[in-house]
């Protein structure tokens, strides 16, 4: 199936909705081409290309809803999908929380497409791997990395007249570079919509430098330290916090944003006043789809935390209706303000502290306080009098992002960072944070 342009996508959506005999019909089509190359031990291990276009149709009879999906687009297959959705809807029990299809939305397009990324081919991917491997080999190091790119489109429509179409591109790159004896390891991550903003050699060199510098790490006692957290080290910590911004959870008493006695903490100052976080689908560095596929609601530029205060919570359509609030599209990105300093400049102004490259295997320990545990990895260093003094062994931390964002000393210049287990595209600064809680040592390199 080739990528559909806007007119073709509209034609398919209209055809599907015309086939439906249900009270309402919703359609989503996602098409993409994803390429990747993976390497390890300085050698390519796998390379792949997957192309797929999938149509999902959801129909409702009253409060009974059914969903079906196909990746074939001939008339017979489209009809089959609609009939299947109708069959599932008839089998499903009524959902008392069913919300009718939304009315027409204004989708203000965002610049999510780059011709340079769409032009990536197998040779480009092989060149990324070759540059990374060759740079590592020259230094006697061993590289393991992964590069992936995607080009595609999204379209949504419903029987109330909603229609949206947008093209998207993206790329992601990570490489871990290790010394042959396994005593040193460095890592880097890059993410972009536009391939013109990506340089495999520059990125690989960062991992190489960290690997060389991290050999012979010394043990530092666990405890509370001033830390300089690179953006990759905090993206997963901060990203996990936003799951608890669900208004329903807060109102029902199941969130750190629940208020004693009932209600939520909207408007309360819970963080350092330097903390400003917002979502903006039109941000030129981390542009995302102008709507949220699940609800089809348009996204909006929204302050989430402003001057340390909780500025907004996430409302599903059902909960918004129940609480007499307005729902809008679930955020696709998260942007945090910072200063103008680089990570190096934050180090230069630090008397004693720990530089963290990356955090790993972060899991929720206590949703009441948002206590998370995880580890540092691939480049942890001790800072003294404004300079990296020596590498140190990795730590396990037990820390809450709420505490962390209350202990900010200084913020650096925000950079684009792709999430691993977090759903947001992010742009966040490196942070200098005091009293970060390292609870044990890890011998892992």
């Amino acid at each position: 199936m080739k990528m559909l342009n806007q007119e073709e996508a509209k034609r398919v959506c209209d055809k599907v909705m015309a086939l439906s005999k249900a009270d309402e019909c919703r359609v989503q089509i996602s098409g993409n081409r994803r390429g990747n190359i993976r390497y390890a031990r300085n050698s390519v291990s796998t390379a792949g290309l997957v192309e797929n276009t999938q149509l999902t149709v959801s129909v409702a009879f009253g409060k009974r809803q059914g969903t079906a999906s196909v990746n074939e687009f001939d008339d017979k297959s489209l009809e089959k999908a609609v009939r299947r959705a109708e069959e599932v809807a008839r089998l499903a029990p009524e959902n008392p929380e069913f919300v009718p299809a939304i009315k027409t939305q204004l989708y203000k397009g965002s610049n999510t497409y780059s011709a340079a990324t769409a032009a990536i081919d197998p040779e480009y991917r092989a060149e990324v791997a070759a540059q990374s491997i060759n740079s590592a080999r020259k230094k006697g190091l061993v590289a393991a990395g992964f590069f992936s790119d995607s080009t595609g489109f999204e379209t949504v429509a419903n029987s109330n007249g909603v229609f949206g179409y947008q093209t998207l591109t993206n790329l992601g790159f990570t490489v871990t570079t290790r010394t042959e004896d396994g005593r040193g390891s460095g890592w880097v991550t890059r993410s972009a919509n536009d391939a013109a903003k990506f340089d495999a050699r520059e990125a690989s060199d960062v991992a190489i430098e960290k690997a060389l510098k991290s050999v012979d790490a010394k043990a530092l006692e666990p405890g509370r330290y001033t830390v300089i957290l690179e953006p990759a080290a905090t993206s997963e910590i901060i990203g996990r916090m936003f799951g608890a911004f669900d208004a329903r959870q807060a109102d029902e008493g199941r969130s750190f944003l629940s208020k004693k006695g009932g209600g939520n903490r909207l408007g309360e100052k819970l963080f350092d006043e330097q903390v400003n976080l917002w979502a903006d689908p039109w941000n030129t560095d981390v542009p995302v789809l102008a709507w949220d596929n699940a609800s089809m609601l348009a996204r909006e530029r929204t302050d989430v935390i402003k001057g340390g205060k909780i500025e907004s919570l996430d409302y599903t359509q059902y909960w918004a209706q129940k609480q007499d609030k307005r729902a809008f599209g679930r955020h696709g990105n998260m942007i945090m303000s910072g200063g103008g300093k680089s990570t190096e400049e934050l180090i230069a102004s630090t008397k004693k502290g720990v530089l963290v490259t990356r955090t790993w295997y972060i899991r929720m320990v206590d949703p009441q306080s948002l206590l998370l545990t995880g580890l540092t990895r691939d480049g942890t260093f001790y800072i003294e009098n404004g300079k990296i003094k020596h590498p140190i062994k990795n730590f396990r931390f037990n820390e809450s992002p709420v505490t962390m964002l209350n202990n900010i000393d200084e913020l650096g210049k925000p950079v684009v960072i792709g999430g691993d287990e977090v759903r947001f595209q992010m742009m966040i600064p490196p942070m200098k944070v005091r009293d970060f809680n390292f609870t044990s040592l890890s011998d892992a390199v």
Partner: protein
Amino acid sequence: MERRSFLKVGAAAGGSLLIPVFGNAIAAEELLNPMAVQFKKSLADAAMNAATKAGASYCDVRIGRYLNQFITTRDLNVENIVNTESSGVGVRVIAGGAYGFCSTNVMTLDSVAEAARQAVAIARANAKLQSEPVQLAPVKGVGDVAWATPFKKDWRTVPIKEKAEMLIAANKAGMDAGANFMQSMLFQVNQQKYFASTDGSYIDQDMHRLWSPLTATAVDKATNRFRTRDGLSSPVSMGYEFFDAKPENKFKAAGGVTTLYKGAYDLIEDARAAGRQAREKLTAKSVEPGKYDLVLSPEHLFLTIHESVGHATELDRVLGYEANYAGTSFATLDKWQSKKFKYGSERVNFVADRTTSGSLACVGYDDEGVPAKRWDIIKDGILVNYQATRDQAHVIGEKESQGCSYADSWSSVQFQRMPNVSLQAGKKPLTPDDMIKDVKKGIYILGRGSFSIDQQRYNFQFGGQLYFEIKNGKITNPLEDVAYQSNTQEFWNACSALCDERDWRMGGSFFDGKGQPSQVSCVSHGSPTTRFNGINVINTARKIG
């Protein structure tokens, strides 16, 4: 490492558009019509002929049909019922000493032949950057064979209404018992896999798996506290008879603190206990940090086993293939070669196994056509082996593969995934109650909680669902805010007692993630209730603004 892809299923509630995560949604009655074996064989032959003609020295073909049904409920409402199907063909070749892989969802002779030719072209491109040719351990072709998960009741034939009613009844039981909120889900999986290779195998397999997780949440608005208790069941590889628990499938945990299950599960009974215990947790005593003897129930210990032994002994991690993502391993080849690396105390015996009925990784053949087997990983505390695929066997001096190859979809390339890795029961008669009699200062932990381990599978921290203080040989009161920290070698060397075979049970992980692009697999880990002396316990309670 457990990933969260399944959460997307439950996220699309309240009238929003659902996007199935594992395939295309289909009507229930269509689930029961398998593809004809002869048709699959003809597709496989077309791919293998095209690959060898294009110059491949080896080719395998996997034809998959993956059927899933997910039911998600919240309180007394059914949020979603989704049937999904995904079918297609994956072709893997070796050409020029390198692997190539290509997949297609178009099930025609021409399309699979074209995929095979593309796989050869990719292999040739990869060969330029290859440092040494792929070496496959020999596998004897088995001709036309079939294998299926043994089951009594096919989940595909149970009416949706009956399943939804069971989940709602469980939620109601939990709420009646003290929970303010209940969530329960039912994941049902059928993998129909056909494997053929130029070694002369045509293997048709039919796998069935189930999981029914639940969470009870209790809230105290006056104190602004909330606590949860998850279900104590495990995912299984069996039929819907799993939910027909008889008295012989139920037994009391040590001290009678809760009911546990073996071989079948009473979802409603466990939900009721979860509702009550979630509320009790609101007022449980907060743990004093320090060193404790831990008595760990199999429903809890399986996850510690999974992370600290299962992943640590994967040979691809040991060799560095996962270095950029899931990590490497502290259990390096030199430790294995020394034949004296003390992974654990002499009581500790781990067996890798793909043959135990009901276990999630139980198959007839792996995704390289290697027959299922069982072998020692840790014997009398010593690291004696790893988990390997055909291309890794020579590294550890094995003459044949251990059958650890798996792909989560027809469209994914197969690679090394863990078999069931299980701790063997103690040889002397010992019950959990007997074990606790010897504990002066300890904690009894049940159920899976938070989990985290470093990238070489060494430093870890685990929590659970239920914690009970043990003082002078007796369980005294429930505890909260408990997590234990250790490193893998110290922990397993602190193993001081194992209950006997009567107490041996399997836990399991349904969504274990690894690889780039990431794939999920599922695996069981068995153990008896086991004691570990002098483990560091931290208090996880925190106050925030």
